[in-house]
């Protein structure tokens, strides 16, 4: 019956803050659907019998199921459907790359625009919270088993929530002074308001999960100590985190930040409110951000909001190869960010006091495809030029943080320092120790970390149920 519905190939636009206004504030850019808009968008869904979209979701959300509830006007019911498989819908609705996952596979995408699954997910999650309808799901009776979760980011929160629902005792150990991981220190307020992260963390703790902050696993205590002191299993979700630099001359001049440092100062430490908050942040007038991913977009748009006059994205390939979400690139363009594509830095120049005063770059062209399948950028001889900048933010990715692996006996890592773990179960080389998220895959997305967390929670549950009580 649903199949006979007339196809509506145009998606309902989402209201956004005006670019001129939002370039100067940290408020959320996308404002979210109203009830009417959500219903109109939901009505476009054909409710396919064999939904392709679900296969594109790392946590297998029942997408036609929750959209069907929206069509019926049961918005809270829609949120509950999502929460059966995804504990953090308000976050995923905002930061998932839906265009590469569920929406990419939507049948409507063949002829027009895919159903805006992410925006609808966000809508029901926000609706549920605004109507104070968030319910604490029933917990299975206590199993008496204890699990230590390392890192309160997307992977850790997901594992913790799932295991708590299954009746296991869960404690999360977080190195920073706030829970959320990259959701707190990395993704800026204008893309993911922190009250939403707090709401989702509160939901996880309401399931009975204990949260210990300012606890650096590998330093304060080790994984082996956990296993020897009553924990039956340990999940490592400590994230990537060691920022890469370009290894070019001048990279340690004052005024060169890693994106991690720049964003942490602004997001976690609230340096944009210095001196009301203690942590300062240096703001250049002409800022270059090197890189083309989501972290680069976040850095560019943060620099703009902190008052930089000119903010330029420097990326060595072309726009088509940029790993950032299309929506975020468009947002950045609308806000007035300049893009210097096919451009690669070769050195950073400093003044006598050791401050950045320019960045020498070379123009690039695309050659034959490399191992990633993307065309390899090749420098054009003689095309060197100097960019007039006084601040450089390096957003070219990050490596594995060694603190946990280096202090855990019998834990295998690969040549880049990432923990070797089965992608489906999180099983590592050490019994009782599981891993998932960026510390296994290298820097990836929130939802992939959550997907890994979800699968691993199942495997840990099976392991714990098979394990005899000590």
């Amino acid at each position, binding site marked *: 019956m649903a199949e006979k519905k007339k196809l509506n190939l145009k998606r309902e636009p989402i209201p956004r803050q005006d670019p001129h206004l939002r370039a100067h504030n940290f408020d959320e850019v996308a404002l979210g659907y109203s009830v009417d808009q959500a219903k109109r968008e939901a009505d476009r869904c054909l409710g396919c019998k064999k939904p392709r979209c679900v296969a594109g979701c790392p946590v297998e959300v029942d997408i036609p199921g929750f959209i069907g509830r929206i069509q019926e006007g049961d918005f809270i019911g829609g949120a509950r459907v999502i929460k059966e498989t995804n504990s953090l819908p308000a976050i995923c609705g905002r930061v998932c790359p839906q265009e590469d996952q569920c929406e990419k596979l939507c049948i409507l995408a063949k002829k027009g625009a895919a159903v805006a699954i992410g925006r609808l997910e966000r809508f029901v999650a926000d609706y549920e919270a605004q109507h104070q309808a968030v319910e604490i799901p029933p917990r299975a009776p206590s199993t008496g088993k204890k699990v230590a979760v390392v890192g309160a980011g997307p992977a850790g929160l997901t594992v913790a929530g799932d295991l708590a629902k299954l009746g296991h005792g869960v404690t999360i150990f977080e190195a920073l002074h706030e829970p959320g991981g990259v959701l707190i220190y990395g993704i800026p307020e204008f893309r993911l308001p922190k009250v939403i992260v707090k709401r989702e963390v509160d939901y996880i703790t309401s399931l009975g999960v204990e949260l210990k902050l*300012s606890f650096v696993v590998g330093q304060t205590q080790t994984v082996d100590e956990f296993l020897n002191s009553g924990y039956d299993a340990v999940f490592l979700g400590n994230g990537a985190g060691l920022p890469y630099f370009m290894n070019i001359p001048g990279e340690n001049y004052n005024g060169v*930040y890693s994106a991690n440092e720049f964003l942490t100062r602004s997001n976690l430490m609230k340096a944009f409110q*210095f001196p009301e908050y203690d*942590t300062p942040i240096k703001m250049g007038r002409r800022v270059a951000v090197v890189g083309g991913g989501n972290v680069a977009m976040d850095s560019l748009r943060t620099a703009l909001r902190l008052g930089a006059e000119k903010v330029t994205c420097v990326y060595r390939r072309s726009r088509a190869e940029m790993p950032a979400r299309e929506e975020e690139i468009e947002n950045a363009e609308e806000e007035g960010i300049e893009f210097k594509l096919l451009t690669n830095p070769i050195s950073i120049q400093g003044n006598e006091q050791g401050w950045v005063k320019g960045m020498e770059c070379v123009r690039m062209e695309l050659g034959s495809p490399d191992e990633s399948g993307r065309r390899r950028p090749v420098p054009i001889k003689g095309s060197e030029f100097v960019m007039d900048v006084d601040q450089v933010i390096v957003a070219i990715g990050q490596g594995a943080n060694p603190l946990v692996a280096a202090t855990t006996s019998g834990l295998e890592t690969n040549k880049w320092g990432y923990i070797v773990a089965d992608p489906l179960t999180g099983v590592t080389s050490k019994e009782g120790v599981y891993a998932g998220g960026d510390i296994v895959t290298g820097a990836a997305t929130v939802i992939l970390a959550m997907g890994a967390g979800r699968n691993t929670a199942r495997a840990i549950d099976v392991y714990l149920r098979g394990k005899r009580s000590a």
Partner: protein
Amino acid sequence: MERNGHGPLNEIVLMRSLSPEIKLYKVKSPLIAKKRKAGQFVVVRLDERGERIPLTIADSDPQGGTITLVVQEVGATTKRMGMLREGDKLWDVVGPLGKPTEIENFGRVVCVGGGVGNAVVYPIAQAMKAAGNRVISIIGARTKDLLVLEEENRAVSDELFVTTDDGSYGRHGFVTDELAKVLQDGPRVDLVVAIGPAIMMKAVCDLTKNYHIPTVVSLNSIMVDATGMCGACRVEVGGKTKFVCVDGPEFDGHQVDFDLLMARLRMYLPEEQQAMEVLEQKAEAR
């Protein structure tokens, strides 16, 4: 949610002035007290809006569950820390962070401390002594009032020399003057450990380089997360970028680019000044 996930409350159980700008704190932090080794540090935050500052652990009492911090009041945060009282609590204490000092029986070890560095070098001298080394300590300060932990350092050293820049106590001059004498006149020194202001560590390294004596320094760069995530603390060692928080804080002093370190330490001087002015205005308004 447990704010201080590793222990009760971070209470200051003892606080005492060692000099007009240096205070000693004993802070309740049982897990860190048990775990910490010489050379490691903690990150401290004073309140919800506080910055994260690294402070070296000077000593610990695993039974009593306390760590000892010796803090020079150089900026707004350390000044405000100095206004706390016994019984007050630090908002966050994170650690122990960084790699411990490599302690073994090297033979003759000279421990050089400058200013508040005398508190940092003390646990290292203590551990070196316990490992069977002959420990010669050289501790210095600008003036007599600023000299800290003289007795503590003396107790763990076979020989102790004191210098003050103004000659108000001990030998008139810099720690490097005394070190030059030890290196020139005494038997062969196997290792020098130097901890203090960057300029002092640089001078020590310039000197020991001539004698080809391995020299370990502990760097005090600016940090944010202090777990390897941000790179604020990066320095160049042997031409390579290193993170003080996870690769250090101790490095081969002969490989460290001290000029770069000093430039990076000056990065936030205007903001530090501004924070001090805000603090003074608040103090006046009270």
